[in-house]
């Protein structure tokens, strides 16, 4: 052990005042990290973060450039030279993309609300071990985690129910996630029984207990699960691609496939795109930003609860 570490902690030379980014004090037994080790760690971490952020940077920056800068760069722009919101103004000013964005927002809001309501009720209903039918219902739900019915029978059923070409087809078939219910349930089961018993003695029924006691105590996990559901609805495109035929009903992800992957031209834009004031690449990038922005903005807020959410999700039969 080095001589420095043999001294008590408070006699060691302090390098700098601890700021918000500073390392917490090292336990006395731990070695000081070597310069090479620190540099290597920094490089590895930096590379991982760079690999994730760089593509996003390109997409965002390019969506904000004028046609001239994009043409000069020969396509995608890495270093921004000009800032313009033309592409966004164009897309949100009406036409196909605006409709699709509204559809996506609507389906996500309604779907998340519906899924959360149903899941929270079910999780609470199953949170009382020993209640009538508890085991049977739980088994019924758990079994679906092991086998799916398959794509074709599900498709035929949705058709037979008359859901094709309705927004219900985007919400109902995937409205509940058993995994999410299990996460909620095990969180609810962790709430102190004494608290709930005392509420019951005071005359509260199950509805009131859920609303007034259980839900306020589970804000963190509710936020995580709501985010999971919302991301699911926001990212979904497959159901729309097989159940919807009407172009005007398509959500944003499907329109993004058409615009960016199949290189189609957005419908319902003004003549600007033809007169060459607007780069088609900027339009494509702007659509991508619209698809990624809500998720990128929301998820960091919920991030600190992820671990708890994922861990309480460990299945208990």
């Amino acid at each position, binding site marked *: 052990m080095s001589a420095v570490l043999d001294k008590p902690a408070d006699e060691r030379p302090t390098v700098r005042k601890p700021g918000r980014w500073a390392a917490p004090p090292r336990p006395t037994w731990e070695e000081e990290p070597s310069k090479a080790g620190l540099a290597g760690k920094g490089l590895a971490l930096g590379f991982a973060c760079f690999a994730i952020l760089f593509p996003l940077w390109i*997409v965002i920056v390019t969506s904000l450039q004028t046609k001239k800068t994009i043409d000069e760069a020969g396509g995608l722009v890495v270093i921004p030279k000009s800032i313009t919101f033309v592409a966004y103004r164009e897309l949100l000013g009406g036409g196909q993309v605006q409709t699709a964005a509204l559809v996506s927002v609507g389906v996500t809001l309604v779907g998340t609300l519906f899924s959360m309501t149903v899941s929270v009720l079910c999780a*609470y*209903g199953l949170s009382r071990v020993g209640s009538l039918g508890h085991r049977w219902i739980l088994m019924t739900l758990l079994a679906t985690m092991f086998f799916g019915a398959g794509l074709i*029978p599900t498709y035929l059923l949705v058709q037979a129910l008359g859901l094709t070409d309705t927004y219900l087809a985007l919400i109902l078939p995937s409205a509940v996630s058993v995994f999410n219910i299990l996460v909620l349930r095990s969180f609810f089961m962790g709430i102190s029984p004494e608290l709930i018993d005392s509420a019951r003695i005071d005359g509260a029924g*199950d509805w009131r207990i*859920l609303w007034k006691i259980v839900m306020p105590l589970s804000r963190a996990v509710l936020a995580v699960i709501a985010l999971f559901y919302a991301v699911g609805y926001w990212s979904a495109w497959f159901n729309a691609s097989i159940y919807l035929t009407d172009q005007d009903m398509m959500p944003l992800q499907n329109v993004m496939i058409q615009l960016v992957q199949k290189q189609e031209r957005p419908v319902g834009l003004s003549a600007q795109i033809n007169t060459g004031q607007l780069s088609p690449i900027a339009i494509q990038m702007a659509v991508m930003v619209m698809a990624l922005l809500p998720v990128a903005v929301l*998820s960091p807020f919920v991030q600190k609860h992820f671990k708890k959410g994922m861990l309480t999700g460990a*299945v208990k039969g």
Partner: protein
Amino acid sequence: MSHSTVPRSRAEAKTPEKNPAPSDGAGSGSRGGKRAGKLSLRLRFRRDRTLILMTLPTVLLILVFNYIPILGNVVAFQDYDPYLSENGFVAIFQSPWIGFEQFERIFEDSAFWHAVQNTFVLFFLQLVLFFPIPILLALLINSVVRPRVRAVAQAIMYLPHFFSWVLVVTVFMQIFGGAGIIAQTLRQHGYEGFDLMTDPEIFKYLVTAESIWKDAGWGIIVFLAALSSVSNDLYEAAAMDGAGRWRRMWHITLPALRPVIALLLVLRVGDALTVGFEQLLLQRQAVGVDASDVLDTYVWWNGIRNQDFSYAAAAGLIKGVVGLALVLTANKVAHLMGEQGVYKK
């Protein structure tokens, strides 16, 4: 507001959970049953009707959208014709039974075997290239002591998990595609451009890279949790005994991760037949069927695009049955290794 008239002691209901018997699962169930058996079924229903009512919407949704379609798999044994009736569901009852003919057709189809082959190649690549990365990233993040740096790095790494596959595939196209930034930079400097997105040879690595980009960061959560549960005393004691940081990593950190790694590995094997349905569907056109067809996309193409429902349902059924067998086997292996698996024994 229905108030229960029968007193229910939550503490009592909880006891089986708090004192798990050596052989858990079944034991606690039967004991719970005995305890509750003191009340008649009618009283228990009266007491728990609100709870049952609460689960009802979910149960209905699961029955309709998960269980009824299982019955719909009978079309695999039919020559199903959706036009026999106005309602496709009624048409199931009117279609002729043909036994295992569809399955025979499938086994004779070389495209099916090609899809099977692609499925396994992709599964293997993901296992070898993808699987270790979250573990390494978790070790890396765990060794960062500054809380701020940690939080920021984690936030960045979790981010791509929340992007849709459409977005991920599109982003890759913008970077590695023929009109992408790398090919363009090369061309501007007088080299020949390239298009990784349409190269069938490279496709399988590309798909794996996309999966890594999207989900490797998310995968670290469970490892970080395992790491955070390791007591600091262990490290201190080891350091006192003269173990350097690498020895501590080898003898304390890695053993702490072992059960999680084993469990996830087993589960991944159980899920071997599912290798990125949406992701592959999105790139099917660009790269061609030969390189991109896996079991899931094969079912989608034959059933929904070609409207050959019986054939596709039969292929889906094969996948489902083999997949279920794999999951159950994997869980069995997990139990044998002393892990909990997805469900308890």
